[in-house]
């Protein structure tokens, strides 16, 4: 396991925290927490094998959140001095005081064990920031060249984002920890341009909680995929348009992860179910009164929340309220059985939730933002002795096999969704018959998951995910993984997107 970066450890973490927390106590805060965060990010982009952009950023700052007179107060700044820490504590208390008259609800937090001077590092091998820029660009140039030289590929876009996150957290209850996480997100797309149309084909490699080793073959077979993309693109350019209608579909994990994210991940966030996101991202059909009774999907549906999955983008040792990572059920045998919660929501709803504990879903995307309830790695579990993807396809007489994600959209209560993908294969009598184009699938969440006849076995399971899930006001960006097997759905509505455009 890599060590926590020495330059971060050298920052005056404890001194800053002590100054802030003591000042908050002196001003009457009943609870206070301090974060010092350093987020290094690098973005490398190539266009047609030419380096277009390579940017190295670092965001370093500190934040204080307090509960004062039963009201939250939050302040953030950038100067790493004890004076600044004290000022932020004062500002946070001031924010609480100013806000008190319009707060109708006393803030209380669920109890949590304390963890003193704990330490945790995510699972990766090579810190991307330890690899010389030229070496990284050379590799991506090679990947670009392989695609560009293929017949029918007009342009190639390559982008890789890497993030190295260090966090120090301390609160007035006695918890303190230092945590380091690394994540990486590649995006490689080949474009074809013909006289009358254009299209693209992207790698389906998901972002991952891995280091630079991911780009050289650990966790993803780049040689194999890059060799296939031009042919996939050529086939898509020549593919017939889908005939709109109702089909049975087999969905590959490279597409299904996003449907899980939108229709289960967000829908089982308790803050949404309680209305805290009603003005922005929306609420949820999966309301708290339906816990234990809502038939979310078919009996083969088992979905977990998990802050501990290896290489998960939402995997942590401790969340931003000092809660240790955990795993729990969200949907079991097709029934809603759990939510994602933070300490405030856990305390307020412990009677209904049946537990007095937070499951560790508080996260802020930087020191400049307040922690909010954020998504764990939400994953659909495979069947222990489940079928292969080929076996699932063999059960379909007239259907479509969907691979890779592209366009996505869902309503503000997580009912109605529409997704496209990278590749769509026609299935006839249990066999693939080449690609289709202009395909989108549209459904209502519970209808869709209710139509899931079978999930694949562990051999089909892949951990997908996203780096850029948006939530909250002011907006924050979160990274989260979703594992799933291939799965078979019966009777799904398929649209022809060209017809939808009125052409």
């Amino acid at each position, binding site marked *: 396991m890599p060590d926590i970066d020495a330059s971060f450890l050298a920052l005056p973490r404890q001194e800053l925290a002590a100054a802030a927390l003591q000042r908050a106590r002196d001003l009457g805060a009943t609870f206070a927490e301090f974060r010092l965060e350093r987020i290094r990010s690098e973005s490398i982009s190539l266009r047609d094998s030419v380096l277009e952009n390579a940017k190295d950023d670092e965001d370093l700052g500190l934040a204080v959140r307090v509960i004062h007179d039963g009201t939250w107060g939050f302040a953030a700044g950038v100067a790493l001095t004890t004076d600044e820490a004290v000022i932020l504590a004062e500002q946070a208390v001031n924010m609480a005081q100013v806000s008190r008259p319009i707060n109708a609800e006393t803030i209380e937090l669920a109890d949590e064990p304390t963890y003193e001077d704990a330490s945790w590092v995510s699972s990766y091998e090579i810190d991307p920031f330890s690899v010389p820029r030229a070496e990284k660009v050379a590799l991506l140039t090679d990947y670009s060249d392989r695609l560009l030289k293929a017949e029918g590929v007009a342009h190639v876009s390559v982008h890789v984002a890497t993030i190295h996150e260090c966090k120090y957290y301390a609160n007035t209850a006695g918890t303190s920890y230092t945590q380091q996480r690394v994540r990486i997100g590649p995006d490689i797309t080949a474009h074809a341009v013909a006289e009358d149309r254009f299209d693209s084909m992207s790698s389906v490699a998901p972002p991952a909680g891995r280091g630079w080793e991911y780009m050289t073959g650990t966790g993803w077979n780049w040689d194999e995929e890059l060799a296939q993309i031009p042919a996939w693109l050529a086939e898509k350019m020549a593919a017939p348009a889908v005939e709109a209608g109702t089909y049975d579909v087999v969905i590959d994990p490279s597409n299904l992860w996003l449907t899980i994210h939108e229709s289960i991940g967000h829908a089982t966030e308790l803050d949404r179910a309680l209305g805290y996101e009603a003005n922005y991202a929306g609420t949820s059909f999966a309301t708290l009164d339906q816990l234990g009774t809502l038939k979310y999907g078919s009996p083969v549906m088992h979905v977990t929340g998990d802050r501990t999955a290896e290489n998960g983008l939402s995997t942590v040792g401790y969340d931003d309220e000092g809660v240790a990572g955990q795993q729990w059920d969200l949907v079991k045998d097709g029934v809603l059985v759990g939510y994602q919660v933070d300490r405030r929501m856990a305390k307020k709803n412990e009677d209904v939730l049946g537990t007095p504990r937070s499951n560790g879903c508080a996260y802020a995307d930087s020191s400049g933002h307040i922690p909010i309830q954020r998504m764990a790695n939400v994953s659909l579990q495979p069947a222990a002795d489940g079928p292969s993807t080929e076996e699932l396809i063999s059960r379909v007489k007239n259907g479509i096999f969907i691979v890779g994600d592209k366009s*996505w959209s*869902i*309503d503000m209560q997580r009912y109605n969704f529409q997704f496209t993908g990278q590749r769509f294969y026609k299935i006839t009598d249990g066999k693939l018959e080449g690609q289709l184009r202009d395909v989108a699938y549209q459904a209502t969440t519970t209808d869709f998951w209710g139509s899931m006849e079978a999930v694949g076995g562990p051999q089909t399971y892949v951990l997908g995910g996203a780096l850029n899930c948006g939530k909250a006001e002011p907006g924050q960006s979160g990274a989260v993984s979703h594992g799933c097997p291939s799965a078979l759905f019966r009777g799904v509505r398929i649209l022809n997107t060209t017809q*939808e455009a009125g052409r």
Partner: protein
Amino acid sequence: MTGIQLTPQDTIERGLALAAAEGADGCVVLVAETSSTNLRWANNTLTTNGAMRGSSVTVIATVGAGEGTAAGVVGRSSVTDDSLREIVSAAITTARAAGPAEDASPLVDGTTGADWDLEPEETTVGVFEKFAPSLGESLKRATAEERRLYGFANHEVVTLYVGSSTGLRVRQALPRGYVSSTGKNTDLSHSAWVGTATRDFTDVDALALDAELTRRLGWAQRTVSVDAGRHPTILPPAAVADLMTYLFWQLDGRDAFEGRTVFSKAGGGTRLGDTLSSQPVNLHSDPAIAGLEAFAFAVARSSGGSSSVFDNGLTLAATDWIRGGKLEHLMTSRYTAGLIDAPTATPDIENYVISVDGATGSTDDLVAGLDNGLLVTCLWYIRMVDPQTLLLTGLTRDGVYLVENGEVTGAVNNFRFNESPVDLLSRFTTAGATVPSYSREWGDYFSRTATPPLLIPDFNMSSVSQAN
């Protein structure tokens, strides 16, 4: 972290001096000082709040690379006199390791602006001095009247300083604020939404916003189910901004030139000069538009399709993207302007105005003129389905109403739509006067818009959404 916090001006002067001393051929230093404050509420009570300050420094160093020029870009927050040296050094090292930049151009010349010496401007929670009490009152009223309010108020000031080794010294402070508020009835079966952009919150009255929400919730006393299909639909300015902001972001000149967007010409090149709409519709940007002021110079912390780090500080001029229905300009850096054979560079500007020549009247006037159709107050979760047609999908939310005989007569279920804003520019049958607008979907990021209400005779509601 040791060292002394520098003023933005000192950061730039020292940064440029360090770059010259270490052998950079050229250098640009950008300093952004930000402050923001916000209030968020839900279920008739405050939920979160904050006061944040931020500071970032971006150093762009250029060095000779073969027969060209290479650039290295490094950005950091919390910069001191000690760490500035490391940043400049890292930028030069990065530039030296890079090959010639495709978009290399001479750095922008200039002089020192008259306000260069001014300190960064700041906002504080005091900006809500008038707004917060009225918000508190509206929350109490909502509780008493069995309504629920959910919303967010944000104010920020960004002060940007740009200095270059070619003498450019420009500074600009830009305030920006907005309020977005959703109202629901007690059983949560109906929603309404209002949103507005502001520069300083002196013109925002939470009670007035609540009154408008109450009026709209009143429309929901009658509810009507409407099937999916193509319906005559009035899009108020906010909903037009929801769609047209996406169109605005697709104006990238290089992507169009390479055949990847709706603005690509079949067979090669761009659609510059093509008539996109038979209607006299205009899409215009200008950093000096009163009330929608944007940065008056180009800011690029990275090079992209049609932006270039070499263009930092380039003066932005009023630009017609679409005039009289014809595509006049695409967004270009100096490099991409040459690539697509455009006469001048037309970089991105952070505002836009859509207008229709001769159009007058308000959303209410369009409603008064409609016999039977829908009024859709805002759209949500808009994503591109097909770049070739710019087909977008998304949903209506928090306020779809039935219009009968020129009046709103009830609330209607929500829909998923599939539509192209480029097509809508041709298909609208009536437009109103252009007014400042606030996009529900993008307004928190891009709020400097002005748009007209439009009547679309056949808006494609692809399916019904159960959400309310």
